[in-house]
């Protein structure tokens, strides 16, 4: 079955720097991959979706890449701000179509 691996260690960076989070998956390449943000005690919030035929997708300060050869997606936040501090979840559809989530990586942006 499909497995998603995200770095479970928290990522600490200084305000203004670029944060880069990694998502690796183990089996077949999905047709698309999604990134969500989750704040403590809240539900995940959709951020970006990238399709298998897209190498890169941008939305404001966010950028996502998708490498089906490496079976990896990278999520970048440029000019990071303390308000970007949250847990970021990678998600993709498994072989039955349901969305499954990675463990998430917690980002802490220090002022």
């Amino acid at each position, binding site marked *: 079955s499909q497995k998603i691996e995200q770095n479970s260690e928290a990522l600490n960076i200084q305000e203004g720097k670029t944060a880069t989070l990694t998502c690796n998956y183990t089996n077949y390449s999905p047709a*698309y991959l*999604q990134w969500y943000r989750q704040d403590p005690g809240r539900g*995940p919030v959709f951020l970006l979706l990238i399709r298998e035929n897209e190498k890169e997708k941008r939305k404001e300060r966010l950028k996502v890449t998708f490498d089906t050869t490496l079976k990896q997606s990278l999520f970048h936040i440029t000019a990071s701000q303390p308000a970007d501090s949250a847990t970021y979840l990678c998600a993709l559809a498994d072989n039955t*179509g349901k969305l499954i*989530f990675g463990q998430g990586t917690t980002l802490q942006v220090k002022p």
Partner: protein
Amino acid sequence: EPEVTQTPSHQVTQMGQEVILRCVPISNHLYFYWYRQILGQKVEFLVSFYNNEISEKSEIFDDQFSVERPDGSNFTLKIRSTKLEDSAMYFCASSGGTGGGGANVLTFGAGSRLTVL
């Protein structure tokens, strides 16, 4: 912006009691889901629901769990006889479906925290 609403936000119950968690999905969405998240762990799929029936359920979703869409707006998750290990945050989500290209973007509610004592 349309949102998914969940009630209650927090419920404390005794082991063995029945619990019903309620959700009002986005009105024009067709697909409904329950996920749960045990503290410190990942968001796990429980069940999906479409056209008034379960589309898929996970191994977690055993006979103690049931879902219902009783009146065309609410979507409920019932746990018949709660166990200590049912303590978790339960998230309802809805989506408009797998539109162009098969993408299924979920809108989540804020969650219902269930504590079983």
